[in-house]
């Protein structure tokens, strides 16, 4: 086994992280002040989010999934999940939902310690995850807020048909926009929406550059653990804002400089100096032990060079950009194209492509109990990607935000075995 200290140098915080933290703090300040300022809020989901549309109505987005994962990182979810289960929510179902219900029942205190406002509207973007529908049915019982249902058809055949596009656009035009007009008290302003969409495209361009920088050796980024920070603004409340454009421009410059200096990615314990394994990762991270989980990779010099989790809020690296010239159609295409809305064959193609294009040594699946959208079929994915890419796959199990399902010793053991296998294959290949 490699010694952890050999692979990692000093810890520091990138400027982009500082900038992002300030953006998020300001957003939560605005949310906390909403009862006084009269600002209206929309609860919505990451995949298929319509942030530009919400911003065009001056609605502040709240993302319960992100609240749940941040609650997990703050060590709150054991308590929240327990509250929800005592209220009758099954131990079998999504822990994001139970964490959110538990947080709501505990006063709805958000990640910055401030109370989150009740929603003025629940914008149910039903994209790539069945549980979303139930989640907002549950929240409707609690908040009695109107629900805007946007049903996004599933890309089972890996293509968007005219019927799918027409269906989503009609819902936007005839159901979602009129609802947002009623809730916000503002008329729909298509020009304003176009301006937000143009900013989205700019930010997306820079994000893709950052993600694809991992093709470089050594990769200047970790495209799984590190990249969850990178996608934070664009997956949440900031896509379509000047702040997001500025953030991604700064991030790109920062990564370009790292690449120029030949640096590896930043980790919780500093830079990775020696990139030993290049890994593609499928599935969401565990959030209760996020830092510990990341350290298990970093200590081995394992760098994620591509991941699918960072595509749940949009698969931009295949070329999609929000198009201000076709505002509703582009929103529909965005929703239809999110990663978990893609059929299993398409997901397998994408993973295989990542393994090859990013010159990965292998790929790893973190299968989370909570998320059937991701997890059902992952063992099939494992076999198929192995067969197609010729690279070995690894498989570990944990959960999103339930600490009961993160077994550090077990996971560490599996990861170490997996990395040893990669090493042996490498040696065998060289012999």
């Amino acid at each position, binding site marked *: 086994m490699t010694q952890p200290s050999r692979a990692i140098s000093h810890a520091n915080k990138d400027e982009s992280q500082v900038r992002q933290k300030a953006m998020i703090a300001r957003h939560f300040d605005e949310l906390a002040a909403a009862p006084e300022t009269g600002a209206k809020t929309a609860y919505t989901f990451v995949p298929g989010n319509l942030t530009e549309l919400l911003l065009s109505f001056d609605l502040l987005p709240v993302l319960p999934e992100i609240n749940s994962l941040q609650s997990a990182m703050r060590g709150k979810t054991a308590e929240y999940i327990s509250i929800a289960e005592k209220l009758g929510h099954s131990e079998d179902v999504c822990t994001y939902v139970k964490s959110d219900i538990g947080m709501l029942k505990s006063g709805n205190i958000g990640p910055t310690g401030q109370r989150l406002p009740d929603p003025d509207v629940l914008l149910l973007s*039903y994209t790539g995850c069945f549980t979303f529908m139930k989640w907002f049915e549950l929240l409707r019982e609690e908040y009695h807020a109107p629900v805007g*249902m946007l049903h996004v058809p599933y890309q089972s055949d890996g293509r968007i048909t005219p019927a799918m596009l027409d*269906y989503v656009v009609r819902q936007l035009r005839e159901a979602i926009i009129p609802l947002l007009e009623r809730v916000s008290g503002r008329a729909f302003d298509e020009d304003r929406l176009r301006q937000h969409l143009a900013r989205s495209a700019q930010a997306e361009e820079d994000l893709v550059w950052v993600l694809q920088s991992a093709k470089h050796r050594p990769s200047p980024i970790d495209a799984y653990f590190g990249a969850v920070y990178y996608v934070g603004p664009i997956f949440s409340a900031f896509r379509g804002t000047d702040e997001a454009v500025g953030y991604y421009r700064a991030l790109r410059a920062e990564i370009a400089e790292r690449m120029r200096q030949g640096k590896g990615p930043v980790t919780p314990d500093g830079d990775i100096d020696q990139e030993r394994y290049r890994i593609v990762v499928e599935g969401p991270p565990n959030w209760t032990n996020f830092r510990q989980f990341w350290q298990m990779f970093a200590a081995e010099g394992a760098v994620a060079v591509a991941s699918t989790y960072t595509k749940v809020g949009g698969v931009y690296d295949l070329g999609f950009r929000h198009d201000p010239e076709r505002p509703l159609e582009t929103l529909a295409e965005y929703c239809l194209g999110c990663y978990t809305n893609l059929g299993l064959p398409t*997901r397998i193609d994408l993973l295989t492509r990542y393994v090859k294009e990013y010159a990965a040594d292998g790929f790893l699946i973190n299968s989370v109990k909570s998320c059937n959208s991701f997890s*059902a079929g992952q063992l099939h994915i494992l076999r198929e990607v192995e067969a197609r890419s010729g690279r070995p796959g690894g498989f570990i199990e944990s959960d999103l935000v339930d600490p009961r399902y993160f077994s550090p010793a077990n996971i560490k053991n599996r990861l170490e075995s997996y990395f040893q296998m990669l090493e042996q294959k490498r040696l065998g290949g060289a012999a």
Partner: protein
Amino acid sequence: MSAAAALPDLVERAEALYRDYRLGSVRAWKEQTGGLAIGYMPIYVPCELLDAQGVLPVGLMGARDDLEIIRGDAYYQSYICHIPRSTIELGLNGSLDCLDGVLFPAICDVIRNLSGMWTMLFPDKYIKYLDVPQNFDPDIGGRFYRQELESLSADLAARGARPYDADALRASIDRYNCYRRIVRELYDVRQEQPWRVPTSELYVMLRATQVLPVDDATRLVAAYRDAAMATEDRQPMDQARVLVTGSFCEQPPIGLIRTLERSGCYVVDDDFVQISRWIKSDVPVGGDPLENLVRAFLTDAIASPTRYHVAGEKGGELAERVRARRADGVIFCAPSFCDPALLDQPMMVAAIEKRGVPWTAFKYSENTGQFQVIREQAGTFADSIKLWSGA
């Protein structure tokens, strides 16, 4: 032979069809007709359209406790429900070879992803993920669903089925109306005289109908109803009247249903084999039959955890079923790890608790083989109803 005397043979025949993993009746039908047979996963698909094009719709509802899962478990983690692994097992062991394709309706993420796996495992078969709308506006969701049905129809024709014909669809709608009507009548008989129609028998009848042409299915259910009504052997017992809910996709083992009955419960309503009751009343036969199917789905389907609840009280329809069936209590009986049922359950519980309806809950897998704990729980529940609910 009198109607009553036919009862044992009818039940035996239905049970044989239910137990035949290799779909012998479907193979026989194909040999006889040369038609296509298309399987479908539970809850709802537009069988009328298939039937109108000469295609036999075949219900796939997983397996029971007597199928050893060998390869199926290799495809799923322990926290995924059981029906996809038994379905994979049946596919890989050749039991479903006679099917020319499978429809995967939008039930949940597990069944959705299974459609992709099936596409890759059985590349020569026709596979369709049937994306039913969650927007019920005829001009929006209806328009989309119609296009889905047109696409399905064209795909079937391309595979050798008869092309779409409006008159043929009208005739099929009429046949399926007859089938659903007789099933509703059987449920009404059970509601009034549950001792005549044990749910363990009703259930195998419905399962048998899933592998038969619709006219045969209708005749089977009608014959069973007549026989059950004619029999003098069955007398009422002091049982609690319960509604069983949550078992709409992965089906419970027959032993579990018998256990409920033996523990002192008359099941007076349930979610089993839901496709036989998904559309609540007759679909109009006149006019544009495809549009009639679309409208029936949008406006006349039962409340289901798989359908978005647009407005009104969540759980209101369950409460109304309790009232209409004169159920004394509700048993939430969902498969382990079933997202739709289990995420819905707290809202359903709230709706019936508000009305003072007693309830209990447990989970199962289709291959559950031990029922002692369930028998004790259901028995205690039935006793408490009889002792304390004034039933």
